[in-house]
């Protein structure tokens, strides 16, 4: 597998998973503070 494809895939997955994890954590924290 080429280095370019590996990097592109790694960055894409990291960005998407990181954003989803971070936003869900922030949502959970916001809901807990609301309660």
């Amino acid at each position, binding site marked *: 597998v080429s280095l370019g494809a590996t990097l*592109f*895939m790694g960055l894409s*997955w990291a960005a998407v998973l990181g954003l989803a994890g971070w936003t*869900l954590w922030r949502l959970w924290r916001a809901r807990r503070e609301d309660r």
Partner: protein
Amino acid sequence: MAGNAVGLGNFLRFPTQAAVHGGGSFMVPYFIALLLVGIPLMWIEWGVGRHGGRYRKGHLPGMFAALWRHPLAKYLGVVGLVVPLAVMTYYTYLESWTLAFAVASAGQDYFGATTPEAMLGYLQSFQGVTDTGQHRWWTPYAYFTVAMGINVWVLSRGIRAGIERLALVGMPLLFLCAVVLAVVIARLPAGPDGSTALTGYEFIYRPELARLAEPNIWLAAAGQVFFTLSVGMGTLQAYASYLRPGDDITLSGLATAATNETAEVVLGGSIAIPAAVVFFGVSGAMAIAQSGAFNLGFVTMPVVFQQVHATLPIGHLLGVLWFGLLFLAGVTSSVAMLTPLVAFLREEFGLRREVAAWGLGALCWLLGLLHVHWLKYGFLDEWDYWAGTFGLVLVAVIETVLFMWVFTPEKAWASIHEGADLPLWPVFKFIMTYLTPLFLLVILFWWGKEEALPILWNQRAAGGGAPVTAEAMPYVTAARALLLLLVVTCTVLVRLAWRRNGYDDRAGFAPAAAPEAP
């Protein structure tokens, strides 16, 4: 909201679009469109929806009139009634394929068809495109009727009672099933031409920079971002109209987009394409993808389930689970499509929810039968192009201009931030005010020049590059005439609603005391 966004687009449409447009060459414009249009539109649509909800308006004619006190505003919103109604008619039909394949998996009906030709033959026999005697003629009609009935039943029970329960159970299960399948596919032995799942990943993520100059790839990528996030449909706005003034929009909108993208990029990209590349090679995968907008998943996954079954006799059960969960994800999306129309009939004509839902369901069923009957003549492709692709961008352009320019950027930014759990990076104000409408307008004009006009003059079919055949011409004309009839009917209904309720376009609506219970 994530339940609404995650649907057939992630696991069936995305792999096909990526494969047809060269994998890596598709992913670069895809991410750019997501950043400049997809995520900003998420916030814009939630903002437009909540603002409309203050005046108890759950439909785009009312929401646009609330943003712009001008007689034209309500008519601009007509497209926000036509698009979800039209898309609902064929989306439910596509959804019924997943239901049919879940049942076929249980009965191991397609077992034995392990080549792309055999599996495509099985699919096209079910669709009624070819007559190989594998299915009875009424099979697609029966599944479509059942799928439509389930949708309307869920809708008639209301948003909270219906969709939330479905999404709460179905989404985590679908994610889990997708992870299991991705692992199974990653461990598949090399295929006949030596391709492995890694070959599939390389195909998706190796950008051919020269192809980035092709406009159709940018248009397809933007179209996929619209379809997958359910933006430009009027459905997110309808949901957001039930939000209270202090509810968060920024963080929830971003979380919805991020969850959907995880389902699409990480899971959707790890299932159908790598599997298709292992079994049929890169060129084989591209050929299947070119045979129909949703075909890749239906042709490839049954082969995976048969492969699993050869070592562990649970392959058919995995098929039932996968197609069954896809059906559930489809229902959570399609139920949302009728929500703006139900809101319109309830709010403006005083109809009960059940009456509006069953009445609209009957209309969608009748229109959907035309898709089932005339699939091979390109009737569905025509509606998917004008309503499901062009219509989405049109709605997005209108709402972005009205919210970010007519309503003013300052008021729009403040409105989005009301009750916000996440202050947005100020660069997004610049993006939403200038880059998002610019990107949308460029797409609309580019699209018009490159695709819409040639399709309109029948120089090419909506579903592919070849010109419309003489045999298909009457059906293509009928598809366009019916869409036009829907536009005229909705325009008349909007005019009637405004007259009936005595709305003054220049004075605006009276604020509602509290958002109505969904």
